[in-house]
């Protein structure tokens, strides 16, 4: 029994690692296409045409081959162990968040649990904790590079991530109070029975989504990289696959953040008028749930990319002002108001 459970989990881990890595490769293509479209260009459309494939479908393969075959330069002046460790931290911390992310229905009477570690009661806490570990990759890369630009990038990243951890954590507390659990499946179940998180917690959603941009180091908050003034920031000294791993880590982070957004605020696998309940477990229902959740995640990722090619980068003081003077007070107000309303409703309604 336990052996089969173990084998099942290993298969799930391998599948999720494979699928997410493949997705990341194609997300880079999608990002380039969206960038091109937003700038009135056509974008990559050649790679794969030799084999009759449309729309540069082999571009990720070419990109990956380039990353692997390029010369891997390690400058003489770097702190070697940390320099080599940093990209691994970036990618591993981005990967292990997936352990508790439900990719579909999870439950005692389901066909398969679409989650590596099913029904973890502190799932969200784990995701937040692991997500904030990613900053170590950036800081260590910046520090070990022994380069002023990389170092400033690392410092900026640490200050930025510490600031945005607070609104990120507080903005989801309202949703958790409503659902009464940190288990993501419970949160989805609550939303499918009541209303989507974005409707009952609009402020919480906006705060969460904004801090998520800062957490993933995406524009408009990509100050750790800022090509113009920091020459690439923390990954200035990295080349070939070591650089590629930072890239991979960033996109994995986007996928995780999109999953959390969809699960907490967009109702997970729930769509109105489809009649899906947490208990429905037929084959069609299961496939529908997986399809809906991945579809929503893809929409979230597209939206994140759309934002990237719309907004310019914040200035550093504006970034800090936004976090400490606006988002944290708003998140606190949201939290207190939600707590009060939940208490009143629970006391006088039921």
């Amino acid at each position, binding site marked *: 029994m336990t052996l089969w459970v173990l084998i099942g989990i290993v298969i799930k881990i391998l599948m999720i690692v494979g699928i997410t890595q493949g997705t990341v490769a194609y997300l880079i293509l999608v990002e380039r296409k*969206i960038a091109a*479209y937003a700038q*009135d*260009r*056509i974008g990559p459309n050649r790679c794969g045409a030799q084999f009759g494939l449309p729309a540069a479908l082999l571009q990720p393969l070419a990109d990956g081959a380039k990353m692997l075959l390029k010369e891997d330069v390690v400058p003489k002046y770097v702190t070697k162990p940390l320099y080599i460790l940093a990209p691994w931290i970036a990618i591993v911390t981005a990967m292990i968040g997936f352990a508790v992310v439900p990719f579909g229905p999870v439950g005692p009477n389901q066909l398969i649990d679409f989650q590596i570690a099913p029904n973890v009661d502190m799932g969200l806490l784990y995701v937040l904790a692991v997500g904030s570990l990613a900053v170590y990759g950036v800081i260590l890369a910046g520090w070990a590079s022994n380069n002023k630009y990389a170092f400033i990038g690392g410092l900026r990243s640490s200050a930025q991530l510490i600031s945005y951890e607070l609104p990120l954590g507080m903005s989801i507390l309202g949703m958790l109070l409503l659902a009464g659990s940190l288990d993501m499946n419970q949160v989805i179940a609550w939303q499918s029975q009541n209303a989507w998180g974005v409707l009952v917690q609009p402020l919480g959603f*906006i705060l969460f989504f904004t801090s998520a941009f800062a957490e993933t180091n995406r524009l408009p908050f990509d100050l750790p990289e800022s090509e113009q003034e920091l020459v690439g920031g923390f990954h200035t000294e990295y080349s070939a696959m070591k650089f590629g791993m930072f890239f991979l880590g960033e996109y994995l982070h986007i996928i995780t953040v999109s999953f959390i957004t969809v699960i907490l605020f967009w109702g997970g696998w729930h769509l109105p008028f489809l009649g899906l309940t947490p208990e429905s477990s037929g084959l069609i229902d299961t496939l529908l749930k997986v399809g809906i959740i991945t579809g929503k995640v893809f929409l979230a990722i597209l939206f994140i990319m*759309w934002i990237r090619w*719309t*907004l310019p980068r914040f200035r550093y003081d504006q970034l800090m002002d936004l976090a400490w003077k606006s988002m944290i007070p708003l998140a606190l107000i949201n939290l207190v108001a939600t707590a009060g309303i939940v208490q009143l409703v629970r006391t006088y309604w039921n």
Partner: protein
Amino acid sequence: MRVDDPQLKKIEPPKMTLADRFFLPQVAAGLVVTGKHIFGVAFQDTAITVEYPEVQHVPSPVYRGVHRLNKDEEGRPKCVACMLCATACPAHCIDIVGATAPASWPDREKYPESFVIDELRCIYCGMCEEACPVEAIELTGLYDLTGLSREEMIFDKTKLLSVFDVTRDAEPMRFTTPPPEASSATQALESPVS
């Protein structure tokens, strides 16, 4: 300038309204703008770039590309080797060796025995064209100027005259013939460099 100079104008950044300070309306407006562009290119084919090797870009009529040496009606180079273009050239890329014109050319005293332009040194400013008193040198709309060696990019008289042959119909001589009515834009041409 002193700090309290009365002529000093102080410009304040515009005051942000409450909606502006929440950023979100402005963010939404920005998303609409980029959304329109993304939608346009994705579904309505409004991209302003072209797929280059298959589709040739047509530059504007005033584009300054590769030089050509104009020929007159008898096929002789119009150049009279006056050296004005070489003098005007800020990049010193024109090298002319003049010689006395043959007796059969009674309308001029000199002609260029050799006329060499280093296309790599040229900055394509068009000063030679401005300076020329007989409209012998002109810049064409050819932009795909490539070569495998530096020597290949030094154009001699033969090559410059052949550029004229290639572009003669697409770009009539600007000052000696009236401009065509329909379109004076450069047509896609075969590159003279080979």
